[in-house]
């Protein structure tokens, strides 16, 4: 097997009150892995994402990116290879900026922002029109609208496009469809699946939807008390059923 893109080695996080919220966790993420992450509330799913993104420092252990130790690299620097879509549609976009302005901002993820003109040209707008059209929710007609007045589904679709516009080395999807109605949620999930496959993205997706966790991705992990208690891939994952998974939630 190829080398992992991203690894956590004996990663441990102990919060000031003494509770260990991540417990000697080991995880190797390989190129083009699409990992669905399950676990009860408090199992450590958000902790896992915050450790990967660099928002939460480790108490002990190591974080590696392409074999390089990045444990001490701050969150803002990790954005050079890492993109994230949040659960709350409000978190992923700048509400008073237009859809096009948001996309333009996202284009410079992780790179230096200088005193050059932002270059929101007609050509760019055309490109954004084609890009937003792929989401199938009329986002393309609202390029000049302030993001704050979009629907939750459109905002979340935009967040997703912004995260993937510059191909990230690792994409974190933090229950990104959970705040949406079932139909919109399914739509975005299908679009996500397409993009991840077509662009050969490596990604982790937190979800509470067992069906989604089984349908999408090539690998599935279940967290409990800051540890990975199940890690299956390919045929093994395909053989899993919802009943199998539920057992991991009742212990």
């Amino acid at each position, binding site marked *: 097997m190829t080398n992992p893109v991203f690894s956590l080695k004996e990663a441990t996080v102990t919060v000031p009150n003494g509770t260990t919220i991540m417990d000697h966790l080991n995880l190797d993420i390989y190129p083009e892995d699409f990992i669905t992450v399950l676990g009860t509330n408090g199992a450590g799913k958000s902790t896992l994402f915050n450790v990967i993104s660099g928002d939460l420092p480790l108490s002990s252990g190591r974080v590696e990116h392409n074999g390089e130790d990045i444990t001490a690299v701050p969150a*803002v620097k990790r954005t050079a290879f890492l993109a994230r879509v949040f659960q709350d549609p409000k978190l992923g976009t700048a*509400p008073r900026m237009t859809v096009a302005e948001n996309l333009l*901002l996202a284009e410079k*993820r992780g790179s230096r922002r200088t005193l050059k003109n*932002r270059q929101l040209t007609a050509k760019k707008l055309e490109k954004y029109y084609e890009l937003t059209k792929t989401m199938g929710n009329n986002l393309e007609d609202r390029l000049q609208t302030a993001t704050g007045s979009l629907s939750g589904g459109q905002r979340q679709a935009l967040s997703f496009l912004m995260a993937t516009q510059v191909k990230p080395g690792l994409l974190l999807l933090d229950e990104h469809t959970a705040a949406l109605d079932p139909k919109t949620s399914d739509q975005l999930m299908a679009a996500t699946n397409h993009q991840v496959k077509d662009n050969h993205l490596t990604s982790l997706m937190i979800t509470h939807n067992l069906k989604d966790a089984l349908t999408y991705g090539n690998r599935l992990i279940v967290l409990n008390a800051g540890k990975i208690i199940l890690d299956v891939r390919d045929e093994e994952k395909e053989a899993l059923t919802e009943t199998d998974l539920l057992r991991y939630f009742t212990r």
Partner: protein
Amino acid sequence: MSIIVSSISQGILWAVLGVALYLTFRILNFADMTVEGSFPLGASTAVALIAHGTNPFLATIAALFVGALAGLITGVLYTKGKIPILLAGILVMTACLSINLRIMGSANISLLDQKTIFSLSFLQDLPKYFDGVVLGLIVITIILGFLMWFLQTELGQAFIATGDNKVMAAAFGIKTDQMTIMGLMVSNALIAFGGAVIAQNNGFADINMGIGIIVIALASIIIGEVAFGDLSLNQRLVAVVIGSIIYRLVLLAVLQLGFSTNDLNLISSIILAIAMMIPQARKYLKLDKVLHMGGKAHD
């Protein structure tokens, strides 16, 4: 007539403060109290320098730098020291009182018989108060031009995004602390610059000239917004300038009613309070209309 020209000239000169405060109050989304310190800081720096024989243009430029320094301190206290922004601003504002006394050596300095930026010969040839209008227009045009250019750069857009959504900005690699500090520095540099220009227009700098500054600057922002409604960012900046002029004209009207200049701060606060309540009042008025229409409104 001349008092109206005087009011317009004051409106244009003071518009610098409204435009500068817009960067923090509307774009970064917080009220920066530093301005009550950086305004007299710029004024005292420039006036003290001029009184010691410095070229008035260099003295005015110097105000930009001391203002930026004040903004830098507030910004570092807020972002790195985790002091709430309101308190960080008040700390720097209070500290400035002592600094300003040190700079001036006394509670006020007069510029009587000193050359100022208003001593330019072409300004002297203008009718009374028109020097303020002309110089004010030149200054505000340069500042608006600079801001309109800056806000459309990649860095400017990162700055706007920081104020709009810090979490999102950080997730896209924008250094939000740096953006916040930069905004405070540019804003306070411009406020101090405004202080330097206004002190030269008044002919003196006074230790108390910062009191109530934030209310005046906010009034021009809010009046501009109430008067013009939904606008693009560039148009909003121009609206602040017009708001500042309207504010001065309203003030003039109120003074004509027989209030004394001692009542100025009270009147400023009342004008701002009223301007800020207008959107709310509009809502209620619309609600009244709906009530009058009875059941028709709900279909």
